[in-house]
C-alpha cells in the first residue's frame, strides 16, 4: 500500500445497551478515564450517555479501528443487550473528542472531570450530522435520560 494513496474510510456506530448492574460514580469515572485515554490514542471520538442502567453510545473513527473496538465493547461484561442501531460511512466527524454524560450520584467533584457532561448540558446534535442521524442521537438521548432531561431548548442548527 502506498502511504499517500490511503483513503481511510470513516464510519460511525450507534448502539444502546443495559448495564448488568447499576454503575457507581467510581465505575463511571474509571470507564471515563480509560475511554478518554484509549480513544484519544486511537483517534476515536463520540459521546456516551448513561442513566439508571441505560447506556447509549456513538463512536466515530476509522472503520479498521471502530469495527474491532465495537466487538470488544459489545462483549464487555459490564453491559448486555447491546443493540447496534447504525453502522455506516460518514463524510466527516461530528464530535471533536470523546465525552460522556451521566447523572453523578455524588455531584461534587465531577465538574472537574474532563470530558464529562451533565445530561441537561449535552448540546444539541452537531449540524454536521444528517438530520436522520441527529434525530437518532436525540432519540437515544431521550431513551437514556427520559423526557425530563430534554435537550436545552435551542433550535437545532438546521431548523
Amino acid at each position, binding site marked *: 500500500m502506498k502511504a499517500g494513496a490511503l483513503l481511510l474510510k470513516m464510519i460511525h456506530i450507534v448502539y*444502546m445497551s443495559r448495564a448488568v448492574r447499576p454503575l457507581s460514580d467510581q465505575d463511571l469515572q474509571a470507564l471515563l478515564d480509560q475511554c478518554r485515554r484509549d480513544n484519544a490514542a486511537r483517534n476515536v471520538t463520540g459521546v456516551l450517555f448513561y442513566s439508571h442502567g441505560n447506556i447509549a453510545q456513538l463512536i466515530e473513527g476509522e472503520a479498521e479501528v471502530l469495527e474491532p473496538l465495537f466487538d470488544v465493547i459489545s462483549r464487555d461484561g459490564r453491559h448486555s443487550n447491546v443493540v447496534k*442501531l*447504525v453502522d*455506516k460511512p460518514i463524510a466527516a466527524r461530528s464530535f471533536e473528542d470523546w465525552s460522556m454524560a451521566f447523572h453523578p450520584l455524588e455531584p461534587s467533584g465531577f465538574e472537574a472531570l474532563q470530558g464529562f457532561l451533565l445530561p441537561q448540558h449535552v448540546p444539541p446534535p452537531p449540524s454536521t450530522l*444528517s*438530520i*436522520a*442521524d*441527529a*434525530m*437518532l442521537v*436525540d*432519540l*437515544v438521548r*431521550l*431513551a437514556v435520560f427520559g*423526557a425530563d432531561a*430534554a435537550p436545552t431548548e435551542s433550535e*437545532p442548527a*438546521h*431548523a
Partner: protein
Amino acid sequence: MREQQLQDVLRRIPAGVATLQGEALRFGFVNEAMQLVLGSPVQEGQPVAEHPGTIPTDLLEVMQQVFQSGRPYVAKAYCIPLPGTDGEKPTPRYFDIALEPVREGDAPVSGLLLFAVDVTVQEEARQRAHQLSIETRRLDTRLRVLTETVPQITFTVDAAGKYEYVSPQWYYFTGQPPTADLNAIWPLLIHPDDRLRVLYQSDSARAAGIGWSYEYRLRRHDGQYRWLLSRALPELHAPDQAVFWHGALTEIHDQRELAEALRRGEAELRFLADSIPELIWTATAEGFIDYYNEYTAEYSGLTKDELGPTGWINLLDPSEQAGAARRWVQSIASGQPYEGLFRMRRHDGRYRWHIIRARQLADERGPRWFGACTDVDDQHRLREVLQTQYDELARTNRDLDTFVYTASHDLKQPVLNLRGLFEELRRSASFDDPQESQIVHMVDEALGQLDATLQELAATVQDQRGLSAPVETLDLRSVADEVLLGLRAQVQESDAVVELDFSAAPTLIYGRANLRSILHNLFSNALKFADPGRPPHIVVRSALTESGQPILTVQDNGLGMELPGRPAPVFQPFARQHPHIAGAGVGMYLVQRIVASRGGHLDVTSTVGQGTTFTVYWFEA
C-alpha cells in the same frame, strides 16, 4: 508350665473369657478383655450377681438357667452399655455372648464358661444399613407417588430402546389396557407424520449416549393427536456408557396451538401490511423503526437496511426534514400521536405529498408505534389547481370591480359633459311640440338616472373592494410577499426568480387594496410576458426621487415591446401588445387609473427581446 502358657494365651486373646464357678457363679479366671467388658474390677470368688458393674439382669437370669439346664446358649449382638463416667451417657457396646456349662464327665454342672466377642462395629454397620434401607424404601415410595401424580408421563428406556418403565399416566392418556405391549404399541400411537422422525431421533440420541428433547403428536384415548414434548437424560454407569434413559413427556398442545395461532396471526397481519399499497411501518418504544412493509421498499427503492431506524426522514423534502424530526422526537417523549403532511421522495426522484400518521400502542408487551404514510398527492394537486383557479377568479373579479370603478369614474366626466351640452341645447332650442318637450324631459331623466347609476356603481365597488379605504403606512415587503403568495403557482411553473429590494424606501402611505392591485398587475404582467427562452427574472425596487418622492420600479427580462408615442396604448383598456398571450388586457389600464387617481403616474421603458421596466411615481403627476 502348660497351664501357665494356656492362661497367658487366654489372658491375651481379644475376646472376653471368664469362668464362673458353683451355683453362686463366682468369678474364677477373668482375662483382661473380659475385665473391660464388665467395666469395674472383678474380685476372684465374687458371685456375678453381686458384681457392681454392667451385667444386665436378664443375662444374669440366663446364666442361672444355663447352669440349671446344662444347655449352652449364644446371644448375638447383645448390648452391654459402657456406663458413662461423670454423668455422661452410657456408650452402647454389642457382644456375641456364649455361655458354656462346665462339667466333668457325667457329673453335674460345676460352673460356666463365659465368652464375649465385641461386635459393636458390625452391629452399628448393620443398624446403619437397616436405617438406610428404611430411608430408601421411603424415598422409593415418594418417588413413585411423585412419578404417578405429576401430570407428565415418566418413562425409562434401556440402551436397546425397550421401555423398562412407564408411569400409569401413559395408560390414562392412551387408554391402553395395563396388559398392552408397550414396545409394540407405542410407535403405533405416534402421528404417522412424526413417527419416523421420533424413532430416528431417539435412536441416534441413544447411540450417541446423550439426552434428547423433541416434540411430537401422540394419539390420545379419544383418538385425538396431541402435541407432547419428550425430554430424557441418560443414566451413566461407567463414563460414556449409558444404560438407561429416564425421561418425561409433557403435553404442550395448547401452548403450541397458541404459538401457532400467534405465528399465523402475525404472518397474516404482515401479509396484510405487505399487501396494502401504502407505506406501513412499526417503531420501538424508543422511536426506532423496526419494520417497513414491502410497499415502502417498492415506493422508496430502498431496503430496510438502507432506510435504517431513522432513515424515513431522508425521504422527506429537505426543507421539511428538521421539523418532521423535531415533532417525531416530541411524540416519542410524550406518547402523543404524530401527524403531518410531507412530500416524500419516490424511487424515481419525484416527490409526492403524503400524510404521515403514527400512534402509540401500549399493552403488556410495552409501548410500540404503528405508522402509515398515505399518498394524498392527487388530492393535494387537485386542491392546488382549485386554489389557483380560485385565486385567478378572485383576481379577475377584483380586476372587474376595479375596472367598473374606474370606468364609472371615467364615465362621470362624459356624462357631465353630456348633461352640460344638453342644458345648452335645451336653453338654445325651443320645443313647441308637447311630445318633443316630453322627449326632452325623458332625456333629462335618463341622464339623471345614468349619473345616479354610475355613482351607485362606483360606491358599491368602492365599498366592496376597499378601494376608497383610507391610506395607511404599508410595509412594501409584506404586501409584495402576500401578492407573490397568490401568484406562487405561476412563479413555480415558470421557475421565476423574483428579487425584492425595498431597503431604500421600505414603507409607503397608500390604500392597501390599491397597492395590492397595482403590484398584482405589474407582477403578473412580468410573468405573463416572459421570454419563453429564459426563466423570468423580476427585480422589484423601491426608491426616492431627488425631490424625496417615493417610486417603485418593476423590471423584467421578458419579451419587451414597441413603445409608440404618447398616450401609450399600453395603458388603454383592451390594448394588447401580445395578442397571442391570454389576459383581459385591462390590467395596465387599471394600474394607470389607480395611480393617477392618487395623484401619481406610471412610466414605462422597454426593449424588444430584452425586457420592460415600469416605474410608478406614487405622488408625482
